């Protein structure tokens, strides 16, 4: 081990009581599926036009016409949130996918090749890790300009280090395994070994990190909107709805509570789902490797 050996239990921390274990996986899956369903079929589920304003009917409470009430422009909140699921999921998927891709590649290469490549890649990881995440994201968005892809890119820059570190330490363990040594002896190329022998066995922690990362990405997107660095209006994003909601929290708490709860429940769903996945995907091996750095 290059660095400190730790038997920490990041992974274990995420485990839930046995009784809840199955039910939490189910609950997580139900919430996740529901959100995905909303995102996919938003135009059919929405009861009003997503940008349809009614300034005489701002901040209406829930009713038969408006299931969740209306927002600060009198737009139907249910329809906004349903369409907002698309944005949140897009940002979540692109940023998590990108971060996983970059981080995994870096981790695999660093862990397998070791030596100066490892040293260099880990220093780069340290640089990004030491950079205050929110400042990095804000600065990148200021440079790139807002947009789903740019915001995702900013989040990738923040998130990829986690994958790099986890995958690297998994790789360090895996490369000493018999089947990898055997492949080496048989003269397989490093690329082949990395992608055919090591990657499939390192996928478990990546998948778990990714499912937990989706929640983090959604919260991060909303925080960026809160700070005014989100997608430009009238894009229906949860972040904007909550950011507006917090402005009116004193007199019209409804908007803030509904949109905040939407984010919270969605993140909860992803986390529960991630927990469940972790238990299925051999928690022992996972936590051991995920905890080391």
């Amino acid at each position, binding site marked *: 081990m290059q660095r400190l050996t730790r038997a920490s239990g990041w992974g274990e921390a995420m485990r839930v009581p046995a009784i809840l274990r199955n039910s939490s996986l189910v609950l997580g899956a139900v919430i996740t599926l529901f959100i995905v369903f909303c995102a996919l079929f938003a135009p059919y589920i929405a009861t009003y036009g997503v940008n349809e304003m009614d300034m005489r009917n701002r901040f209406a409470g829930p009713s038969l016409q408006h299931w969740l009430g209306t927002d600060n422009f009198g737009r139907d909140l249910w329809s906004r949130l349903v369409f907002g699921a698309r944005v949140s999921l897009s940002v979540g998927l692109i940023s998590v996918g990108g971060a996983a891709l970059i981080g995994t590649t870096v981790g695999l290469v660093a862990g397998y090749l070791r030596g100066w490549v490892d040293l260099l890649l880990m220093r780069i990881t340290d640089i990004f890790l030491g950079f205050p995440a929110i400042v990095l994201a804000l600065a990148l968005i200021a440079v790139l300009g807002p947009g789903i892809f740019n915001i995702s890119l900013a989040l990738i820059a923040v998130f990829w280090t986690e994958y790099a570190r986890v995958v690297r330490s998994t790789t360090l363990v895996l490369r000493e395994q018999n089947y990898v040594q055997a492949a080496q002896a048989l003269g397989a190329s490093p690329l082949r070994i990395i992608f055919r022998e090591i990657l499939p066995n390192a996928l478990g922690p990546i998948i778990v990190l990714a499912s937990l990362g989706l929640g983090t990405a959604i919260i991060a997107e909303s925080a960026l909107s809160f*700070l005014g660095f989100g997608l430009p209006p*009238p894009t229906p994003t949860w972040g904007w709805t909550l950011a507006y909601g917090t*402005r009116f929290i004193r007199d019209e708490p409804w908007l803030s509570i509904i949109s905040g709860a939407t984010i919270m429940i969605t993140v909860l769903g992803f986390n529960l789902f991630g927990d469940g996945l972790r238990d299925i995907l051999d928690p022992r091996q996972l936590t051991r490797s995920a905890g080391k750095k």
Partner: protein
Amino acid sequence: MKTFLLTLGTVAALALMPMQPAMAQSNDTLVVGVDVDAGTLDPRLARDTTAYRANDLIYSGLVHLTPNLEAVPDLAESWESPDPTTFIFKLRDGLTFSDGSPLTADDVVFTYETMTDPDFNSPIRSLYSPITKIEKMDDRTVKFSLSEPYAPLLSYLDIGIVPKKLVEGGRDIAAEPVGAGPMKFAEWKRGSEIVLEANPGFWGGEPTMKKVTLKLIPDNSARAQAFEAGDLNVIQSPLSPQDINRLAADDRFGNVIIPGLAVTYLNFNAGDPLLADPKMRQAFAMLVDQETIVNDIYQGADAIANAAILPSSWAYSADIKQPAFDVEGAKAKFAELGWTDSNGDGILDKDGAPLTVTIATHSEDPNRIQAVEYIQAIFTQAGIDAKTQLSDWPSFSTGYVLKGEHQIALLGWVNIVDPDRLLFSQLTTGGGRNWGGYSNPQVDELLQTGRSSLDTADRIAAYQAAATTIAEEVPYYIISYQGYQMFYDKDLPVKVEATPRGNLRGLIGLKSD
């Protein structure tokens, strides 16, 4: 185990224990909520409202502006203007700075000479550009010479006089200011508060309030909440419209709700090919639903504007009209200009190109964001492919509007103590702040007359004529006259007198003035 529960219990008890609002509020202390931390307390370099407000108390200028923006004697007891390009000021007898050193004509000359020196980089230097010479006649007399008659000058001479000797001796008055105002500087905890104490040596007598604390709370809603929680005695604009209405209805608090000195407006870029034709700008302006923006988004905290002159100004006229909100009229106008929905996709087009426009503002002000979002919705309804653009203030202003890269931008002007301040460098050809590149020789001439004529009737005629042309050609579309709101604790031991600039001399119990 027990230990842990015990500790948790203690923490919970601590958290839940009812506690007096934390400020020790003795009766002669004024705690004012402010939205930004001051950058520098050197009045010549100050550039934020908090610094203006602190400096107004710490320093005194030659003149003081009343709530009606009239210049009245402050350090100068009188002045005369033997000819239109000369002003002679006579200082009061026996003036001192708060450290006890005498204030003389030397200090006045020093203050204005440094401020007008280009290398000093004063942000307000351009306001004094017609000044050619500042001379000391004797210890109590100063003469200003101008290159041309300059009517707004007096309203700009309230800048605080700084102590020449101290400054030249190396005192950093940006951090530890010394002035001749009613309060003196005590402490500045950056990012937190500025504390001032009464100045017994003030020429107008020691104020009733012995201590003024400017407490920084950047978020408008949080500041309102802190005021309601009793942490603050006074809060003022900028405030969220919804907070204004709630606070105004609360009988624990006194309020002052008056027209301010600021406008919120749309800057149409006349240099953009799409918007070069005044008729196009008119058509877009007809899609701005002023009433809904002002009454619903700003909840009536601001007032609907009709022209580029403030209603509180001597030059105001209610007869000047900007294009009225009329969606059908706007569509007709677009059609007249060749923009019709020829391919039936719901978006107007001309020569095969769709009518696309971007409305931009900065991301710090949720009300402006809402206004832009609302305007975008109406533009879309009228068949325009309208986009919005949001970025933080530096990107938006210096990186975008100042470079003339915008099409339609929503922003504001503040501190309009004279019509000149809103119009001259903004809308004359080649003006320093004419970011949209608007040019109309007739307007240029009118604005020049307005600035150099010393006859009020002439100035009124010039500004009204200019405002009429501007309302027609719409380089600016003034959405609203911003209101000024102040809320205060009713138990304050002074008679509250507010000014639309938000300065605080009317809250500290001055004997004269």
